[in-house]
C-alpha cells in the first residue's frame, strides 16, 4: 500500500515513474515530488502510471494542482501508461478531457 516515486531527468524532460497505490495517505509524497518540477517552468513533465493499479480522488487532486501550476509556469504536463481502472476515474470525473493522458495500450480506453 505504499508509493514510490523515481525521477529520471534528461535536460528539460522529467519523467516520474510512480508505483504503488495513490490515496490520501500516499498522495502528499507524489505531490512533493511532482510540484517542484512543474513549477520550475519550461519543463516537459511526464508522469508514468504503469505501475499504479489504484488511485482515488486524492490522486485527481494532485494532478489538477499540477495542471494548474503547469499553465502558470509554462511547463507541459502529461500522464502516460495510465491503466484501465485508473483511467476510468479520470473519465467518470470528466478530467480525461482536460489532462493530457496517454492510456496504456492494453484496455486503457475501454
Amino acid at each position: 500500500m505504499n508509493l514510490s516515486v523515481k525521477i529520471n531527468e534528461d535536460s528539460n524532460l522529467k519523467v516520474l515513474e510512480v508505483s504503488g497505490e495513490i490515496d490520501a495517505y500516499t498522495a502528499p509524497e507524489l505531490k512533493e515530488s511532482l510540484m517542484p518540477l512543474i513549477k520550475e517552468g519550461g519543463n516537459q513533465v511526464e508522469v508514468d502510471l504503469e505501475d499504479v493499479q489504484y488511485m482515488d480522488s486524492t490522486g485527481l487532486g494532485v494532478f489538477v494542482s499540477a495542471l494548474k501550476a503547469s499553465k502558470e509556469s509554462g511547463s507541459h504536463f502529461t500522464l502516460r501508461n495510465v491503466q484501465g481502472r485508473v483511467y476510468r476515474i479520470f473519465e467518470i470525473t470528466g478530467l480525461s478531457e482536460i489532462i493530457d493522458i496517454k492510456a496504456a495500450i492494453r484496455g486503457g480506453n475501454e
Partner: protein
Amino acid sequence: MEAFDYIEMKVPAKAEYIGVMRLTLSGIANRMSFSYDAIEDLKVAISEAVTNAVEHAYGENESGEITVGFGLYEDRIEIMVADRGGSFNLGEVKSETGPYRSDEPVEKIREGGFGLFLIEALMDEVKINNKYGVMVIMTKYNREEEVDMDDDQISTIQ
C-alpha cells in the same frame, strides 16, 4: 427480516488506515463473489468515504475513530462509514462535488470535491445522514448473480 452477516470495525481517523479498509472490503467482496470490476469500484467508494471522515471529522489536534460496518446480503453489500466528529459541513462538501464540465476554465477546477461524486457514480445507492457526525451508507448489488439467474431462466426455457 432478511438474513445477513454483519462485520464491524473501528479504526483511528488517520490516513494510513484508508488502505487497510480498502483491503478488508476487497476480501469481503471477493468472498461474496463480486466481479473484479465491482470490487475495484467498491475499493474507490470506501476509500472516498473514509478519506472524507479522516479529513473533515476531527480537528488537527483531535484524535477520533471511524466505524465501518459491512452488511453482507444475498444479493448486495451495504457499507456504512461513520464518524462522530462535528466539524464536517456536509452541505458545503456536497455543493462542491460533481464532475468537471468542459466550459470551466482550468484555473477554476477544484482540487477536491470529486470524492462524493465518485461514491455516487460507483455505488448503486448512497444515503448520507449527518445528525450525529456524518454517516455514509452505500449499497452495491452483486450483478454477477443477477446474470447467473437470467442464464438459469434461459436454460430452463430451452
